[in-house]
């Protein structure tokens, strides 16, 4: 070093160090989430929906909560939902979980190629969807199956899509879980992350251009907020005061990368709102009532031309990223049970029990019903076939809808595909 110091210009300056974030716990580590500040649900203030973003600067650093440790609803954020609505919310979340369980098993049984659960995050789609009007347009990522289920989408249709069978209304073109339902104001899911965020803003701008009353909402994982599209979405949302809600699901993990790789070591995702001049809220994502309340607050704001809101839902991805992922390779197995915000279904259940509107027997019955419903839907969908068993849409549909009309080159390629089929199955094969 002495030689180097003597000969290298600038060597009297300190050497620089690259900081590479590292999660607190790796496989085998004991987990202690004591560093996460969890404010009390009691006494939380709910700002006026017409507030200026700059007057909301504390909210992106706080944590909106309604359900306290006593399982009761507290504070100004309590949406004061009637018990029937709460039971519907609980039932929707239970159905999503039962659906995930069965579809995951279906993938393991070889009925489909792929599946992604949303375990632990059910509130962030179910409760949020319940706070929106059914014709508000949602631009989800791949982990918001709770919205479809809340909006009453047919489970058989969902499973048909997962199996890519002859009942799949997306004609077997899309990877499982990349649903689309215009009828349910649920935008076509893309594999490309965060692309839906500026699209949601554009939809909201269109609604405003046409003097409509509908608003848009989009969901994106905390990992995907690092994409350039998210920056574009925030910029356009604020510039045009678009009636849109930008929901960031911070479930701590983007496949194997902890949230630190999206910038979480030094700030919150809700705090991104401040730099854009957006209203920003940070919310307990496992508190279904807080999720509902925050989404309703943002929806009211957007509907009154008050502009866009960015909401960070602080939650935990309880399972692997997908059926192709094994989280034991990168994180401690005990994180899930140590997660300080608990489980959204359990918390809502305990709340309903605490207010005398529910009990364990009814819960068990509800879970049984959900499992039965999913099982029946699965059987029904399997009549249309499972992946790889030949019950798919006719091969010619592969060429349709690339364009509105089939151009000459696709006609020629479709003819080639038909010919290949004749060579492979000279005695004929059903389409």
């Amino acid at each position, binding site marked *: 070093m002495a030689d180097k110091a003597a000969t290298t210009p600038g060597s009297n300056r300190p050497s620089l160090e690259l900081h590479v974030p590292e999660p607190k716990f790796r496989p085998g580590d004991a987990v202690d989430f004591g560093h996460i500040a969890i404010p009390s649900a009691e006494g939380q203030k709910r700002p006026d929906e017409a507030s200026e973003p700059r007057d909301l600067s504390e909210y992106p650093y706080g944590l909106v909560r309604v359900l306290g440790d006593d399982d009761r609803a507290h504070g100004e954020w309590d949406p004061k939902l009637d018990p029937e609505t709460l039971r519907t919310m609980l039932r929707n979340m239970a159905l999503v979980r039962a659906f995930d369980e069965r579809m995951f098993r279906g993938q393991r049984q070889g009925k489909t190629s792929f599946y992604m659960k949303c375990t632990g995050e059910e509130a962030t789609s179910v409760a949020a969807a319940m706070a929106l009007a059914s014709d508000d347009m949602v631009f989800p990522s791949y982990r918001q199956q709770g919205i479809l289920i809340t909006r009453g989408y047919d489970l058989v249709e969902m499973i048909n899509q997962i199996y890519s069978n002859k009942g799949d209304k997306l004609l077997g073109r899309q990877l499982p879980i990349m649903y689309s339902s215009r009828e349910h104001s649920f935008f076509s899911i893309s594999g*490309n992350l965060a692309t839906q965020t500026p*699209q949601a803003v554009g939809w909201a701008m269109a609604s405003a251009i046409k003097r409509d009353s509908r608003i848009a909402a989009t969901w994106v994982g905390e990992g995907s907020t690092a994409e350039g599209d998210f920056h*574009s979405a925030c910029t356009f949302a604020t510039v045009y005061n678009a009636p849109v809600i930008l929901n960031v699901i911070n479930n701590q993990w983007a496949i194997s990368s902890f949230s630190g790789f999206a910038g979480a070591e030094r700030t919150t995702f809700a705090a991104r709102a401040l730099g854009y001049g957006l209203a920003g809220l940070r919310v307990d994502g496992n508190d279904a009532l807080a999720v509902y309340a925050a989404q309703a607050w943002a929806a009211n704001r957007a509907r009154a031309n008050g502009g866009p809101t960015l909401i960070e839902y602080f939650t935990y991805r309880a399972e692997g990223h997908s059926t192709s992922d094994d989280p034991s390779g990168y994180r401690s197995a005990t994180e899930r049970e140590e997660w300080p915000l608990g489980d959204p279904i359990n918390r809502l259940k305990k709340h309903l029990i605490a207010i005398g509107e529910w009990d364990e027997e009814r819960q068990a019955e509800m879970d049984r019903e959900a499992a039965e419903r999913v099982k029946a839907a699965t059987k029904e969908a399997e009549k249309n076939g499972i992946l790889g068993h030949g019950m798919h849409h006719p091969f010619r549909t592969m060429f349709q809808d690339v364009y*509105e009309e089939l151009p000459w080159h696709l006609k020629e390629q479709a003819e080639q595909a038909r010919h290949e089929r004749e060579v492979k199955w000279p005695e004929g094969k059903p389409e």
Partner: protein
Amino acid sequence: MSTEVKEALATSNGTERRLNMIEAINEALDIMLARDPDVIIMGEDVGYFGGVFRCTAGLQEKHGKTRVFDTPISECGIIGVAVGMGAYGLRPVPEIQFADYIYPGLDQLISEAARLRYRSATEFIAPMTVRSPFGGGIFGGQTHSQSPEALFTHVSGLKTVIPSTPYDAKGLLIAAIEDNDPVIFFEPKRIYNGPFSGYYDKPVEPWKRHDASVVPEDYYRIPLGKARTVREGDALTILTYGTMVHVAEAVCREKGCDADILDLRTLVPLDIEAIEASVEKTGRCLIVHEATRTSGFGAELSALVTERCFYHLEAPVERVTGFDTPYPHSLEWAYFPGPVRIGEAIDKILSE
């Protein structure tokens, strides 16, 4: 005056007006804004200022700020937002100031706009037209001269359109806006104000001396996917588009070459019938484009002609293109596929 122009004039009020390409584009946008309340124009500097090339001049004042407006400098945002507007039911016409700057929007174009109809099985579509000035010959250097059409012709689900005259620019742009598929509409900025012979040291020839500057005032459309015969001949077929249509035409005129020149106008879907008919007639084919050579659209054209017209060919298919380098500033005219390169290629093909 071409038959097409005469026919169009016959169906309009018959007034003969001469417009340059900028005015023709402006008129197409004006007509579509008036005809369809779902048409929205947006992009950097397109609103109050009327665009850096004046293509949207006066449109915001006439149609209002919610129909024609300025955007943040974000191509990804402009195109992403347009996809969302299309999903709502609008017909957005976003502008990308230079084709060289379309790349931040590529993910939205390739992964989203192009695939939306297919992946949603027609539940959602992206009926948008992305207008963007492209091409060189203006001392634009590396980032104001590129011809990236081959990046888009390679994407299934996109249509790519390139006009070469004011008459075509208006008719093709109207057709593109009305098309329910996403269209990339590249405007050759070298010929915004007048056709170009390839001789950069000669004064610019204004559009008003060119037949195709007669632009009917009314609505008319030129179907996408149809080539235009620029001149008819028997010696060889020249397949080209954009600025190079005029350069190739000038070279043929100068050399007295009896070429059959096809202005492709739409690259996808391509007018394969017109190409086959011409090459079968002439037996020789030259492809001319400004874009770089390797994997350029000329490679696709050459392959198609070879595959489909092989037994009619009397000489190998030739390509005259830009070199495989970034577009240079000071050496622009050494890079540009001008009269010498085209002339020698014609001589070579005719000598086989």
